């Protein structure tokens, strides 16, 4: 049976194809449209999924949408009604979007895929998330926890999975939302909502959580893990433009100006910011205040998530937990769940946000509605598009840069190791691109993590991004425990997807300065030979050459752009950045003749 899963119209539109219960393809629309977090109807991602499966729209048995649009519309109308007369802006914006697009999703699907109306299904938002976690996990029995901004009404849900069945049993409803709480602070700290949350997470270790008590004024918890926001401090439920209100500002001070350089006494003043300002101390103190706020909301979020994880464990008796929803991308909280709760096994899907719900909706339909066998195990994230030799050859020829011919794998690995060990920054594009926000060795920028200066070089010369944000290490799973405080690394599924922050062993911190964050932690990726043999081989060969089988791995994109898809896009990004070499499948391209 061929089932297409879709998510769109909010953020991170995506499509996925499930054939006979197994995932065949999954990709976010942004990789094709080149619009970051593109939420439009995913025409291009659908076309890719069908191409990958060798299908046309007529071959599809069902198309499954990741939520119930009318329920969501009802929630928006109810929110508008309860917040009259302040909700005029939300009403106008919501009506325009819903009446023009969102209410007609069924028609849009019918038009796009020429499929009969009774073949279009709708799975509730949080159930789609739940299925994306449990049905992709290796567990036969698990607790399920979904946490995000908001779906239809639910913002948080608990459930259980057993065999091929998964169900949600209880939820917490809008406007009480951990995702929206975190987003309010994201906006307050000068970042874009639904985009800058991970920047808050990166900023937090530079601060001290001295405002935790103030943050707890905004949210109350119960021993059963449930929570309630004090809405007197927020405006997200009635404003289209602002997530927090004046009372919030009175509590935490004025919001941080967007795009203002961030540095503290700990980070130092980076030379690439230009001349040192006369009021350096004053600016450092100001930034420290915001870092302390970031640290405080991070701590409170972690505590809330830990409370929910414990509640899910108590209710189900299961020690395995499957998590999804945008908050499941908070890799620091994920690490604490494993260290501080009775949960012994955790699974977080690589695209835990709304994009991944496209997979969940399709898998739920396949197993729970249509009785297909459960075959959705997702132990890697390589579900995107691959590009053959012709596309590589065209990109290399068009660029006119010095390049090798197509190398055999031994020669390729040896040359790339030589470049990395010599201090080069290398773009690395091979195979199918990753599903989800992380680059996991198929669309990555790689560098030597032993060199402390690499962090600044990659942040400023290559990616042009904020200097406080950490870089992640990739390590072959068999070597992970040597460098990172992680029990039985092969068992820790989130680490495969770079969704687990764990302490770097104290004795390894000096060895890995470029990937050890300011608090001594790292968001590692464990690499398995059977899921990514070439990348595993590169890491192992780097280890043979240098004694350290670890590489700095960051996503292959420039600031504000989606991760690259095609060889031509990889080449374009390469040419606009300060990378030294680019590996396109088995061809190496050099920025200069000298580099070759």
């Amino acid at each position, binding site marked *: 049976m061929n089932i297409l899963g879709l998510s769109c119209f909010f953020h991170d539109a995506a499509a996925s194809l499930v054939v006979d219960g197994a995932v065949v393809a999954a990709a976010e629309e942004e990789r094709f449209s080149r619009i970051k977090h593109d939420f439009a109807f995913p025409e291009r991602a659908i076309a890719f999924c069908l191409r990958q499966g060798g299908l046309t729209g007529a071959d599809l048995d069902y198309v*499954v949408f990741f939520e*119930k*649009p*009318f*329920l969501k519309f*009802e929630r928006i109308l*109810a929110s*508008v*009604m*309860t917040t*009259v*007369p302040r909700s*005029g802006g939300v*009403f*106008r914006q919501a*009506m*325009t979007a819903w009446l023009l697009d969102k209410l007609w*999703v*069924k028609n849009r699907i019918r038009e796009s895929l020429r499929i009969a109306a*009774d073949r*279009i*299904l*709708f*799975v509730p938002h949080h159930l789609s998330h739940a299925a994306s976690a449990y049905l992709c996990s290796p567990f036969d029995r698990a607790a399920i926890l979904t946490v995000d901004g908001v779906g239809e*009404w639910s913002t948080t*849900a*608990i459930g259980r999975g057993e065999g091929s069945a998964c*169900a*949600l*049993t*209880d*939820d*917490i*409803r*809008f*406007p*009480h939302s951990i995702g929206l709480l975190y987003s309010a602070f994201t906006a307050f700290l000068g970042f874009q909502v639904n985009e800058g949350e991970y920047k808050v997470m990166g900023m937090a270790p530079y601060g001290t959580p001295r405002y935790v008590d103030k943050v707890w004024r905004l949210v*109350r918890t*119960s021993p*059963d*893990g*449930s*929570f*309630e926001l004090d*809405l007197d401090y927020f405006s997200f439920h009635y404003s289209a433009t602002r997530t927090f209100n004046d009372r919030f500002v009175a509590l935490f001070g004025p919001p941080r100006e967007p795009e203002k350089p961030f540095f503290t006494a700990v980070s130092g003043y980076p030379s690439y910011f230009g001349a040192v300002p006369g009021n350096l101390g004053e600016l450092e103190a100001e930034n420290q205040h915001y870092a302390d706020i970031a640290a405080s909301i991070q701590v409170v979020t972690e505590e809330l998530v830990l409370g929910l994880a414990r509640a899910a464990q108590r209710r189900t008796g299961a020690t395995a937990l499957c998590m999804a929803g945008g908050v499941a991308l908070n890799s620091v909280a994920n690490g604490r769940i494993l260290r501080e709760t009775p949960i012994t096994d955790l699974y977080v899907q690589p695209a835990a946000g709304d994009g991944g719900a496209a997979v969940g909706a399709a898998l*739920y*339909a396949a197993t*729970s*509605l*249509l009785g297909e066998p459960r075959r959705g195990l997702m132990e890697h994230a390589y579900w995107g598009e691959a590009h053959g030799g012709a596309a590589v050859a065209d990109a290399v020829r068009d660029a006119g840069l010095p390049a090798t011919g197509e190398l055999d794998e031994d020669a390729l690995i040896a040359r790339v190791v030589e470049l990395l060990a010599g201090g080069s920054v290398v773009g690395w594009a091979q195979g199918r691109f990753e599903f989800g926000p992380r680059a996991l060795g198929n669309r990555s920028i790689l560098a030597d993590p032993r060199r402390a200066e690499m962090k600044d070089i990659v942040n400023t010369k290559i990616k042009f991004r904020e200097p406080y944000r950490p870089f992640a290490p990739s390590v072959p799973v068999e070597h992970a425990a040597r460098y990172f405080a992680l029990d039985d690394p092969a068992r820790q599924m989130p680490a495969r997807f770079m969704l687990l922050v764990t302490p770097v062993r104290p004795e390894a911190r000096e060895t890995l300065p470029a990937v050890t964050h300011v608090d001594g932690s790292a968001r590692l990726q464990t690499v398995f030979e059977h899921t990514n043999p070439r990348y595993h081989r590169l890491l192992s060969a780097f280890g043979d050459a240098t004694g350290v089988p670890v590489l700095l791995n960051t996503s292959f994109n420039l600031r504000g752009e989606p991760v690259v898809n095609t060889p031509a896009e990889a080449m374009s990004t390469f040419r606009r950045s300060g990378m030294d070499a680019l590996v396109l499948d088995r061809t190496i391209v050099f920025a200069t003749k000298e580099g070759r």
Partner: protein
Amino acid sequence: MKIWNQWRRLSHRAAAVQSHVVLFTLYTVVVIPVATVTRINRKARVEAPVWHPLPQDAPSLESARSQS
């Protein structure tokens, strides 16, 4: 072509203004009074901070065909 593009830009702006006016009127004339009456008669719907049990109906294609 130039005239066509100018017309499109103009009509787009006119549509934006019209939708503002229509939605403002709808909000003022319908939403505010209805919401006010509803509030007087019924406590506003703000969910309590507790777990809400979800219906445990058996999954079915029929319910999945519904958008609500």
